[in-house]
């Protein structure tokens, strides 16, 4: 049986400052080595200053993953030499002297499958290496420390996954969950990085590191299973090792790390006392936790009669569910859910488009109300939405500028109906015996009014005219 376990590193991107100093947590907009200070550069004499909010946000993650949360947390040093590590050790967590890591055992459901969490730890991200020249034979390594010290949670799972598809589903659920908690924006480049442990029946565990994207995660695991099965079928034993995902060749490659590199000499970080997380603080954090995705979904279905499919899509994406929460009323909720899931999602389907989009809750509310009151048609609403996303103008202004308002003036519609009746004598005849055909005629009226004729009024008038 194939067994896969994951180590997910997720940056707490929504924090203001780094884990142990006051530099910016979101380092992405800085020039090279300009988001650094003596502390995150590990200069002689500096000491870590633990970020209170990081401890709280990491605790919330542990709670959301149904993990135990300890009464006190401790930090340890993981010692190894690497140029992206200013102190040549990483401050991280372990459970050496009792359960002192920010999260203990827990679990979440992926469909019908329960995935067990081993541990969650709070730690610092290293800097970033840039290889000059080709990556294998580079002459020099350049280091940018802007990322060094960024708060990171590492979520370690049990080897409970049976295949790449399960892994992908889990990562999607986890990514939505972290975003919904308001602790991280997993869509940011490098905000979520995953190592996978893969083993097949009768083989040793192989760790794959350096998997750059969610997309490659599935590929890397798939490749690794195939590689191991191929070895197994040829009676070649699978050794325990660490392999790197080669992003360009899309294969895993053995890392020639020597045995001595694996002795991390973990010991207590004396510069950070053990931090008590008292029951009152835990209760407060629990109370402040945002509604979970599944509860949200259930509420959408039961309270607003939204279909389970639409509710699932809407609740799992924080961007859309936030818009929904800001715009809906009891009466227009279903309409808004439909606008979001059928029209808006198609318009803002990438991260960039979302960030550029100018839409607000008020826009959505106005749109839904206007549809329900017959002020504009659904077709016009879609056109208006396109304009609103682009410009952020008020709906009333968009309707005026693009002339999208419904024609509800009887005489105007009647005039057009007359035209249609004279254009389509055959259809008019059929309509007298077959009521289905009348919809065809309504469509023709709509065509001539570019979708603006009040559909209900048009139908009534047509029926009267045909008799």
């Amino acid at each position: 049986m194939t067994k896969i376990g994951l180590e997910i590193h997720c940056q707490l991107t929504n924090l203001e400052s780094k884990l142990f100093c006051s530099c910016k947590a979101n380092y992405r907009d800085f020039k090279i080595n300009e988001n650094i200070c003596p502390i995150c550069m590990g200069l002689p004499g500096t000491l870590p200053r633990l970020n209170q909010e990081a401890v709280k946000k990491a605790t919330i993650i542990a709670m959301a993953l149904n993990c135990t949360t300890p009464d006190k947390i401790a930090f340890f040093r993981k010692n190894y030499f690497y140029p992206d590590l200013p102190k040549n050790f990483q401050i991280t967590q372990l459970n050496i002297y009792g359960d002192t890591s920010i999260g203990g055992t827990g679990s979440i459901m992926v469909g019908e499958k329960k995935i067990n969490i081993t541990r969650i730890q709070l730690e610092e991200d290293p800097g970033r290496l840039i290889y000059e020249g080709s990556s294998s034979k580079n002459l020099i390594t350049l280091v940018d420390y802007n990322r060094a010290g960024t708060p990171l949670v590492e979520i370690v799972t049990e080897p409970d996954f049976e295949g790449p598809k399960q892994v992908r589903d889990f990562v999607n659920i986890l990514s939505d969950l972290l975003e919904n908690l308001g602790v991280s924006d997993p869509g940011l480049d490098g905000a979520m990085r995953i190592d996978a442990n893969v083993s097949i029946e009768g083989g040793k565990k192989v760790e794959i590191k350096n998997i750059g994207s969610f997309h490659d995660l599935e590929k890397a695991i798939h490749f690794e299973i195939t590689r191991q099965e191929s070895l197994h079928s040829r009676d070649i034993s699978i050794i325990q090792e660490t392999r790197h995902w080669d992003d360009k060749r899309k294969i895993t490659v053995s890392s020639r790390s020597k045995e001595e590199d694996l002795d991390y000499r973990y010991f207590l970080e004396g510069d950070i006392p053990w931090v008590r997380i008292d029951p009152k603080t835990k209760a407060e954090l629990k109370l402040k936790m945002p509604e979970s995705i599944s509860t949200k979904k259930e509420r959408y279905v039961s309270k607003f009669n939204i279909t389970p499919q639409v509710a699932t899509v809407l609740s799992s994406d924080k961007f859309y569910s936030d818009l929904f929460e800001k715009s809906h009323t009891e009466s227009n909720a279903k309409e808004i859910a439909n606008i979001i899931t059928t029209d808006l999602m198609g318009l803002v389907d990438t991260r960039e488009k979302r960030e550029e989009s100018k839409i607000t809750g008020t826009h959505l509310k106005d749109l839904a109300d206007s549809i329900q009151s017959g002020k504009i048609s659904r077709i016009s609403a879609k056109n208006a939405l396109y304009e609103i996303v682009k410009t952020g103008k008020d709906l009333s202004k968009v309707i005026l500028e693009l002339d999208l308002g419904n024609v509800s003036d009887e005489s105007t519609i009647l005039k057009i109906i007359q035209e249609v009746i004279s254009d389509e004598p055959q259809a008019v005849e059929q309509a007298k015996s077959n009521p289905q055909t009348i919809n065809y005629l309504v469509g023709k009226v709509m065509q001539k009014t570019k979708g603006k004729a009040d559909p209900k009024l048009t139908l009534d008038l047509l029926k009267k005219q045909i008799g």
Partner: protein
Amino acid sequence: MNLKISALEFVQEVKNGNISAEDFVAKTLERIQSVDDKLHAFLSVNEEAVVKAREIDKKVKSGDKVGACFGMPISIKDNMCIKDSKTTCASKMLENFVAPYDATVITKLKEQDAIFIGKVNLDEFAMGLTTEFSAFGPSKNPWNTDYVPGGSSGGSAVSVSSFECITSLGSDTGGSVRNPASFCSIVGYKPTYGLISRYGLISYSNSIEQIGPLTRTVKDTAFMLNIISGLDVNDNTTRDNKNEDYLSEIDSGIDGKKIGIIQEMVGDGIDPAVLSATKDAIAKLESLGAVCEEVSLDMVKYSVAAYYTITATEAGSNLARYDNLRYGYDFSVEGYEFNSYISKARKNFGPEVIRRMIIGGFVPSAGQAGKYFLKAMKVKSKLTKEVDEVFKKYDLLIAPTVPILPFKIGEKIDDPVSLFQIDINTVTANLTGKPAISVPFVISNGLPIGIQLLADTMQDKLLLQAAYALEQTVTLPEVPI
């Protein structure tokens, strides 16, 4: 100009206009010029000191608010960062390191108008107890320049005892303030762990070390503590002392106080002169109304092994950052592979530092941690329990600071294990986090002996009162330099 006055006298004299800070500082610099060739306390001297002193004199004259130090010249062990000045740790590895920030103690002293007269010598990265392991040459004991001044804060002790400054800041990881204070016949203080911020002190063994003042009187130590102690946002391990005034009530005496004599520190290996000095000290404390009784701390036997295991482990990690990439000395990375480059670059560490780092790699390694490191941590825990238990019955503990007299330079440098034993009386305060002080007590055949007192956690004020009482019972000859 009398350079021998205490810090409190200096402040009074400048305040009253009897002397100027500028004159005093200038004379101090002359003194350094004339004696430091023989003593080698200083690694660098602050050329700006006189200019700074002049500014303070101006403030005094114009009646502006002046900080509590009134331009008092202080020397700083060269493992504490002063912004824009060299901080070498007496190591070739950091020979060119210029600190881009001030240590918290430096910030506090600057606010109180202290003048940093220079950076003083130490064993490289504070690893040693003789100052012989400085990469820039040993300091000499002013009582006899053939002898070691103790260490690792040897430069601090020498500069204070030979009037090259009024007070000094050192750091004490296993006795590094108290040991040289004892060897040079001055006061050396190791506060409760967390009483003084370590921000800006270059770590050797961060879980047990503290910055501490070296002064000529106990009152001066209390004066320094008033300035540099207290909670600091930059050091998560600092404690809130509620702005305690350590000077007030310092003359409360020790009548009725119970003092435990630590048996394990006056037994095997103690020099007869040191033992007899200790007995004298006990008699004097008893004559002041204290009740002295023998106590036993079983774990002391293992404390030195535990101490070196823990400090080597932490040092191995703390010194890992010195890979010469971000700062360091001239040595191009080109043409090297990462591991071979840093292994070569790190050859600039001295032999004692290298030995301790190797041990620091060995004892906590995956295969050995259970045998050495974990046991050492457990000895630390058990020793702390034992000491806590003793402090339920006693107010203070007493032992000689160092079991032997100062020895000759070079005498023990090749025998690291015999050097270990010298730490036996001092490491307990570090492993347990308790405050401890060395008070100069007697000169025996031309060599100083200090007496050590310990108190319970955050009982620093009580400890200073006892030390002051003991200090008042002795009169010491003047240093012969």
